[in-house]
């Protein structure tokens, strides 16, 4: 009896599986592809053609500008871009943010390799419960998200908004570069006092503490890319109250002998060294090219 009771369960399974499969009908092959396979499609218009020709082909970048549920943070009140703003924003990115890298590296190979393969656009900002807002995000070297597309203007009078957008792009691209090759660990020890409450500190106060913007005080990663973007495009709340050049921002540190000034200068040295050593890019000439592109793009 013992033998039987041990064998029986095995038998059961054998019989069961045999019976279940025995009646199976012939398999119907699927003739309709699953809905949405390969992404949504829609009637292509001039925006889609422009994206294909100017970003997808040369840079291997897909641009998402139509609202895609779940692509951005959910459940969050974010609005999609105004279609009329999409091409102007992309043209500005190409001319002011991307072109300087091409000029410095001699071709679009560098950006084609390192630009994240997805560029996602949102019309509004993303509002956080703490009162701060997201202007951009970089995700693991694969996606870059640019908010506030609807606020775009290339008029000189609106240069603050324009510079903020370019600042955001250089900030996020800085993250992407770091996510590929990390910056030296020594950078993280230049400053102490990183805090999650950065948004309670004014930019001017942060500069006294050796941070180029208050957001730089959030974490070393942010500090590094805020240095990159502030040197390339200037930073917010400078001496004039708006976006000012890097040198002008330094005047808010308390002067060349202050700790704030020297701390920021030490960070500058690491950034310049990182770009030269890792990417073979002379950061100061990249900066000159960026500024030139800026000045000529504003109307």
């Amino acid at each position, binding site marked *: 009896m013992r033998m039987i009771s041990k064998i029986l369960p095995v038998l059961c399974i054998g*019989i069961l599986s045999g019976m279940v499969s025995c009646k199976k009908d012939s398999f119907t092959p699927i003739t*309709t592809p*699953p*809905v949405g396979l390969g992404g949504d499609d829609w*009637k292509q218009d001039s925006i889609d053609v422009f994206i294909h020709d100017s970003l997808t082909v040369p840079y291997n970048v897909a641009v998402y500008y139509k609202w895609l549920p779940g692509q951005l943070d959910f459940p969050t009140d974010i609005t999609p871009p105004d279609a009329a703003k999409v091409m102007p924003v992309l043209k500005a990115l190409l001319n002011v943010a991307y072109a300087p890298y091409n000029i410095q590296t001699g071709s679009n190979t560098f950006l084609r390799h390192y630009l994240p393969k997805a560029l996602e656009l949102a019309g509004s900002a993303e509002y*956080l419960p703490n009162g701060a807002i997201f202007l951009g995000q970089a995700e693991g070297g694969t996606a870059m998200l640019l908010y506030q597309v609807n606020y775009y203007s290339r008029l000189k009078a609106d240069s603050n908004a324009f510079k903020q957008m370019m600042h955001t792009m250089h900030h996020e691209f800085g993250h992407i570069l770091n996510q590929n090759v990390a910056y030296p660990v020594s950078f993280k020890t230049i400053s102490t006092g990183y805090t999650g409450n950065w948004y309670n500190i004014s930019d001017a106060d942060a500069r006294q503490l050796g941070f180029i913007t208050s957001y730089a005080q959030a974490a070393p990663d942010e500090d590094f890319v805020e240095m990159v973007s502030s040197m390339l495009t200037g930073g917010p709340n400078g001496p004039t109250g708006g976006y000012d050049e890097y040198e002008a921002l330094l005047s808010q540190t308390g002067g060349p002998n202050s700790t704030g000034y020297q701390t920021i200068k030490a960070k500058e040295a690491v950034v310049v060294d990182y770009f030269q050593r890792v990417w073979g890019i002379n950061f100061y000439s990249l900066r000159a090219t960026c500024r030139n592109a800026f000045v000529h793009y504003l109307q």
Partner: protein
Amino acid sequence: MKRISLYILVVVMMAGAGCQKKDSDTIGGLTPDQRIAKALAAYQSKLMGAPYGWIFLESTTGIAYNQGVSQSGPAITLAYFVQFVDSNTVVMFSDFDTSMSVAKSSSYRIKELTRPALIFDTYSYLHVPCDPDPAISKSPFGAGYGWGTDFEFSFSDSTVPTEAGDTVHLLGNLNSAGGVLIKATQAQRDAYYSGSLRNNASAMLNILEYFKRLTVNGVVYELRPNADRTMTVTWTSGGQTQSITTSYYITATGIVFTTPIVAGGVTLSSIDNLVWNSGTQTITATVGGQSATIKGATAPFANDANAPSRWWHYANDNGGYWASFNGWHVNGVDDAFGVTQITDAGGPFYQFAYIPNLLGPQNGNPNADAFVPLVVQNNALALGNYFSVPATPPAFAGGRAFFTELGTIGTIPPGGPVDKSDQVLYNPAGFYLVQTGTKTYDMVLASTARTWISWFSPF
């Protein structure tokens, strides 16, 4: 043996189940993907199958979500005209703002989500009330929240689209706003394109007086459109003053009350065909088929005589203050004196405030109120560098409040926004106070009723 028979039983049962298996991969011979594709195509042709477009009514729940955090506010209804002209293009009109009474094109698509969904996927009139930037949406829910409207909807009818008839129901995916698409007639469509929405939406703006009186069949009603997209209707019945506040929306036909107002045996469900006549400074309209007029008035229909004292005491007794984001509204212009543009008062302008008993022995002053711009300094609110000091309390007489100047703090630039604002406050005609909510009052200049300021209590 018992155990063996149990095994046999199980084997027989399962074998029986296994052998009865039928091919159930399809319903009506269609795989799930085929059924999804078919449903999407059916919804697409439903939307495009309305030759004269749709009237789209969107009603919010009074709750708006952002980052999973909700805020409560007014529940509103907005009216759109939408026409789905091809598979991805929609043309619309909206009653959200008078600037939206011209046709504007944007994109949409129908997509499979948990349910088939209608997504307005680039910015349109529909997105403005959703915009998280309060400077754009003018939302009272706060930064990060629109009015609780949606631009991504699920089709919520339980019937298949071909059987849905002339009405299609939608449910917003973020804020659960309810939507109803009602097939429009050619007359409705033509009315939108011929500017009727603009006429109906802007007619009342021509009346510069705060108090607006509707006369139908000899009966007078006071109409007060509120900032939260509701309308307060006041009338007298049997010697008693009564009032009802309801949300409303505007179509090419007229102004429609979301809940019809039953006033002394008469039901007001809408005010139709509003036409402004600049010669007589009167709006002609029809109400329930009868001709009606709307005119401005310089005094309230039934003044709330205790309101001035109640207003002052609420802030004074709670140690709070009254605040206004826009300062004085004069002759149809919000922020007529440009107080929001003040830059020389110590920081960016935030609010204009009336603060009872700001001055007193505690700061070495005689007791006095303050009529003062508040500015942002170092991420905090601060008093502006210069402001006027009214005597405390104001005089309350004849159902009005009267203010007298006791002095000033700092040097008020002559002819500047603050100076101009002060001159209005000390107008000897005094002010009516109209309570518009539990913590909101409008203060209306009694001489012309064309100048007022909207106060809210931040506490």
